[in-house]
């Protein structure tokens, strides 16, 4: 029976590895170490700039542990979505770090760099050919949208990982990939059950989050020809995989709790059977995989939409706290009329007030009978096409944020600024612009692979 053991060191490269759990995992003879490096969860800035979320030293720490472990056992390392957003910059950054590790630790392994960042020209061609389609909930786009993105990545499936492995790569550093692809690639290549490999991928992609105690433990998935077994590698006997924790993990960050679509098809867990086979391990079988008629890659794109300036003022005044909304409405009216008077056109800027301590997080009106907040941290955010304009508009607001009276004709209060100057330049801001898929006849068409021997 073909079996492939995939060791997942942690939920993400750069988030830290529990060393003892990882070492124990290595002693269980894994066939591959796989980890996901990215996500869109932290917002459009990272993709828009191509930069990563984690500190370089944190990436280096995790990559060193993984690369050394793989070298010791002679097994490959697979990293998906290098540098958070999976840009070319992220792939090159991880490759540079791995080179530093080789140099310092005195060995080397063959690296594959898989680039999935896209030229807008290529995608505009696909758009004209009708090969780009919206996913449910996608914004409306036009051909111009591709040029408005500063970075676009295509989300890879297992195919480029498999190609790199076949060509002898030992450290596979991929741009944007599905969270599961780095895990599913080797077992599928070896002929293990395809549905089980994908389902195992989704199960362990967040590391220990699929266990009873959401430790930063390493997790092992053992995929065979029928299903997969999953268990923690940490010594602590209280950390377990149970049918409940494993099946419940399909819910996590997933709009549909039974199905997940990959570039080559969709796996479905609605008929899966989860069995506790020993104290800490669960065996899963019955997952199905339906190959799609058309191979697709998801596109993620983010582009600049202006500049922001932020001001924060602290308010403990009982009059304002008793009715923050009336005060904020009056304040806004006054600010807008001043801005009009000074000749700022409302089309050139926008703003938002966020009263932290009142309802900035949910935007909902407090339930009746709730006591007034003791303090409010009021944040003014101004957006404009240039930083200078955003600053100037913030400066018009400034004396009002400081002194706006609680009621008309009332005494002049002074509210609490924490900084001088009272405003902070937030710089360029970005928004996600694509939630689409592109039809491809060749799964590797949008991937470029470079090898470093």
């Amino acid at each position, binding site marked *: 029976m073909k079996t492939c053991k995939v060791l997942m060191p942690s939920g993400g490269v750069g988030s830290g590895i529990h060393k003892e759990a990882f070492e124990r995992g290595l002693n269980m003879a894994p066939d591959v170490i796989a980890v996901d490096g990215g996500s869109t969860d932290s917002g459009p800035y990272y993709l828009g700039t191509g930069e990563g979320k984690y500190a370089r030293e944190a990436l280096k720490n995790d990559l060193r542990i993984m690369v050394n472990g793989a070298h010791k056992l002679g097994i490959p390392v697979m990293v998906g979505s290098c540098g958070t957003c999976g840009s070319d910059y992220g792939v090159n950054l991880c490759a540079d770090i791995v080179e530093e590790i080789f140099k310092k630790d005195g060995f080397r392994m063959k690296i594959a760099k898989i680039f999935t960042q896209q030229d807008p020209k290529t995608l505009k061609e696909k758009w004209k050919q009708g090969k780009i389609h919206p996913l449910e909930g996608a914004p409306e786009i036009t051909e111009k949208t591709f040029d408005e993105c500063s970075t676009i990545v295509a989300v890879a499936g297992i195919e480029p990982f498999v190609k790199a492995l076949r060509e002898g790569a030992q450290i596979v550093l991929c741009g944007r990939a599905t969270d599961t692809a780095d895990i599913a690639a080797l077992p599928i290549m070896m002929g293990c059950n395809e549905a089980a490999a994908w389902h195992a991928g989704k199960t362990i992609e967040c590391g220990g989050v699929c266990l009873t105690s959401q430790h930063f433990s390493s997790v092992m998935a053992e995929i065979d020809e029928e299903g997969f077994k999953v268990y923690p590698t940490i010594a602590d006997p209280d950390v377990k995989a149970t049918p409940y924790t494993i*099946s419940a993990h399909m819910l996590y960050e997933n*709009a549909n709790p039974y199905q997940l679509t990959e570039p080559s098809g969709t796996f479905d867990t609605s008929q899966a059977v989860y069995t506790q086979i020993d104290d800490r391990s669960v065996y899963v079988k019955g997952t199905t995989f339906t190959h799609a008629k058309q191979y697709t890659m998801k596109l993620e794109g983010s582009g600049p939409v202006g500049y922001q300036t932020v001001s924060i003022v602290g308010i403990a005044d009982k009059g304002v706290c008793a009715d923050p909304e009336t005060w904020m409405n009056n304040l806004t009216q006054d600010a807008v009329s001043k801005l009009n008077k000074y000749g700022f056109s409302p089309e050139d800027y926008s703003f938002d007030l966020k009263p932290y301590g009142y309802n900035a997080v*949910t935007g909902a009106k407090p339930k009746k009978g709730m006591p007034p907040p003791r303090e409010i941290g009021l944040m003014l955010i101004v957006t404009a096409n240039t930083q200078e304009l955003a600053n100037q508009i913030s400066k018009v607001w400034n004396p009002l944020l400081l002194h706006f009276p609680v009621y008309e004709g009332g005494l002049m209060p002074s509210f609490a600024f924490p900084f001088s100057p009272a405003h902070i330049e937030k710089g360029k801001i*970005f928004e*996600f612009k694509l939630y689409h898929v592109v039809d491809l006849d060749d799964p590797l068409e949008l991937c470029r692979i470079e090898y470093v021997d």
Partner: protein
Amino acid sequence: MATLGELAKYIRSKGAGPFWVTIDIFCEDEKSYEMIKNSNNISAGYISETYNVPEENVKTFYLDNLRVVKFSYPRPKIQGSKYENDMHSGQQYVLIADADV
């Protein structure tokens, strides 16, 4: 009358990609699960009203084996847009936790 937050074992909200939010309501036992599942108030209509999304876009799942009620809805504003108030949507569950079952 109990609120959802009092009846459920654990409620979480989280982004499911930049364009969707998903809310998972976990129940300790069959009784509370059935009460929540059969509640007229805890429904796609409530999600629609509370989170400002069209009701027909709200997806509802009842996972009997796990005793979980799950709602998924498209974000009214794309994640990380200019005036985002919750990047990971991790605090949005609080509004539904206050609902009467």
